[in-house]
């Protein structure tokens, strides 16, 4: 088959987890070129943020990504706090670190099952959801909601941790450690898994920079670009953890990075549980109006650099909000990687980018 043909993968196709279209030009089994079409679930989130009081927008920030809602609302609230120049207590900072890292683990478990499902190993598609469910259970215990938490507040959090949370969370981290290790071994020992992941979709260091990738995708290409170390926010500078970096830049490297990140996250949670101050102000009164000025605040999302650019205008309603989504850049990096790949490599390459259409289309 030397003739070239276009294959539309999407908007409803198993390869896209979410609504988007991948238009692939193929020659037989080889991908010549690909084009990404997005916009199917564009909800004008930025405009919605610019048309209502800043505190009313906060539950909508949850809806940016249904897999890591906590980190999106957290980033938004922390950006607002930076604009308002609000200080939060040490206890709240530790609590936020615990919640954000739990969310990171839940998000990476979702990624693992999606990636394994795209490779065709249906057992790994189902099992990680069990561990994710435990994480969501404990987050529900704290916030009252499984996915859309609405728990962060300017100046603190909605309420304190419930009774017995610290012990539960500690027990959960040990359980997760065991399970993460088990999954890592399951995949590492599988020869077919390695055949499908290694040397597939190699993203070089230079390209990773040029395409604006962040997060695990960037770290898999040999760059230590973790904002928790480079630009510490909350109390990450008081905690001892390592940032995994891999040089290979292929799908397997991205898999390794995420698995190691989950292990580091459990360590961070344990340290935070040890060091969390017993006393501290949980919530604080925040000013109703955003002051004049502009701010850009970014955190390390499970997918990379999540940022909010907020312009205040001495009003309850922000003048402008621009959201920087890491998955958006990673999605376009995947289009670059697909050139010259096999048709069968499309699912692992796209899945290894950990896409979430909610934050890409906004």
């Amino acid at each position, binding site marked *: *088959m030397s003739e070239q043909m276009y294959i539309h*993968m999407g908007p409803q196709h198993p390869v896209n987890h979410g609504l988007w279209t991948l238009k692939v030009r193929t020659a037989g*089994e080889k991908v010549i070129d690909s084009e990404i079409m997005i916009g199917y679930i564009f909800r004008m989130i930025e405009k919605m943020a610019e048309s209502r009081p800043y505190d009313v927008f906060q539950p909508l920030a949850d809806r940016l990504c249904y897999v890591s809602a906590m980190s999106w609302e957290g980033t938004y609230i922390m950006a607002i706090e930076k604009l308002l120049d609000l200080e939060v207590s040490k206890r709240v900072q530790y609590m936020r670190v615990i919640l954000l890292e739990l969310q990171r683990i839940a998000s990476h478990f979702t990624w693992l099952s999606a990636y394994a499902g795209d490779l065709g190993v249906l057992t790994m598609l189902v099992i990680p959801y069990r561990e994710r469910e435990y994480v969501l259970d404990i987050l529900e215990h704290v916030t009252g909601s499984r996915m859309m938490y609405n728990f962060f507040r300017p100046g603190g959090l909605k309420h304190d941790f419930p009774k017995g949370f610290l012990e539960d969370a500690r027990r959960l981290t040990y359980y997760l450690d065991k399970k993460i290790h088990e999954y890592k071994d399951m995949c590492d020992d599988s020869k077919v898994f390695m*055949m499908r992941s290694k040397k597939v979709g190699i993203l070089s260091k230079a390209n990773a920079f040029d395409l604006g990738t962040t997060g695990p995708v960037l770290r898999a290409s040999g760059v230590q670009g973790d904002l928790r170390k480079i630009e510490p926010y909350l109390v990450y500078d008081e905690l001892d953890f390592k940032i995994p970096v891999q040089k290979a830049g292929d799908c397997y490297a991205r898999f390794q990075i995420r698995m190691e990140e989950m292990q580091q996250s459990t360590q961070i949670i344990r340290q935070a549980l040890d060091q969390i101050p017993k006393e501290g102000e949980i919530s604080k009164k925040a000013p109703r109006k955003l002051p004049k000025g502009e701010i850009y605040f970014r955190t390390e999302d499970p997918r990379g650099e999540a940022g909010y650019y907020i312009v205040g205008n001495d009003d309850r309603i922000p003048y402008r909000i621009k959201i920087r989504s890491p998955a958006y850049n990673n999605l376009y990096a995947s289009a670059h990687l697909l050139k010259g790949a096999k048709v069968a490599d499309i699912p692992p390459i796209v899945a290894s980018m950990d896409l979430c259409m909610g934050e890409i289309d906004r």
Partner: protein
Amino acid sequence: MGYGIYDGLVDFLLQLVAGILTPLIKTIGGVLGLIGLAEPEQFLHFEVEFQPSIRSTLIDTLEMTTILIFLIVNTIMLIWFERKLVARMMARRGPTFIDFNYGHFFGRTWKFGLLQNIAEFLKFFSKEDIVPEKADKFPFNIGYFAFVVAPPFILGGLLPLGGSAVVADPAVGFLLIFALFSLYPVGVLITGWSSNNKYSLIGAFRSAAQLISYEIPLIFSVGAVVIVTNSFSLVDIAAQQTLTPFHLPFAILMPIGFIVFMVALAAETERIPFDIPEAEAELVMGWRTELTGFRYMMSMATEYFILLIGAFIGVSIFWAGSYLPFIPREWIDNLPLLPNIIFIVKLWLFIFLFIWVRGALPRVRVDQLLNIGWKRLIPLAVLNIIVVVILFISNPSLFGVY
């Protein structure tokens, strides 16, 4: 040959028919003689006799019906078994109970989801049969049933059901089974191409490439068995494995060939490490994307049907059919039904291996699949033949030849 269970029944039926027909014809002859239309002496010693071919045809028909019902029931149970087993591997429960709920049709709820597949078959039959508008209608309607669904159903009579219970045992034996197997990619190609869908087209070409390249190691791997047994008959090959030292099966005596056979069979049946023709991650449903309703159901059922037939071949050739190691053949043969029970247990163990693999592995890529086939399996199969031939020449009794 034959199961031997219908001989008495058929004899009785034929005698019954003869017993009714003989006096009837004699009476008619008498009446005709009275009115002068026939010679009465012609009918004095008249006896209705059937040619032996009628008797054997009747027996064969009954036996074919039996094996087909056996295969269909086992296919349905195989799908249920796979769902339950894979669900357990995934920490799920699978189908738990199914209730038709039309005034409690069966009177009660059936446990373990045993009726799940039957319920789904009924559902598929009630679906609309959609032929894509731009599809090439004739090949789309015909090619698939002619080449995909029909051949496995013809095979039933060639499959031994333990011991020497087999409807027909032609000299070409399992070569005929493999020949009918190889019609499968033709039907897949015709269906995929004619349904005028790009996913189906790619899936169909992948399937053709895969099945053609795995036919070779599959037949090479049993080549060594044919060399030592001097037979293509599944019954003879199974019986030969009782003559080996300690009655060891060929799976232990020629392990390389057995592994090659298992891998090639997994590829032939398009099971999960090699299910690239229907890789649902990139090709939606591969070559069966456009099949709906009963067409889809038949294509899926055929896949399991072929797995079952593959298990029949594998158990007969490599697992000594209904015979066990360390146990003399006579002990098993002399007990009624024991060979058949052992055979069916082995069949399900064989299928269990495939379901286990399905629960554990991702699928390989198409070029990797072809590399495994041409660069690994075929040399291994040839190596197996060389090793077995050297052993056979130096010590024929190792393979049961004296």
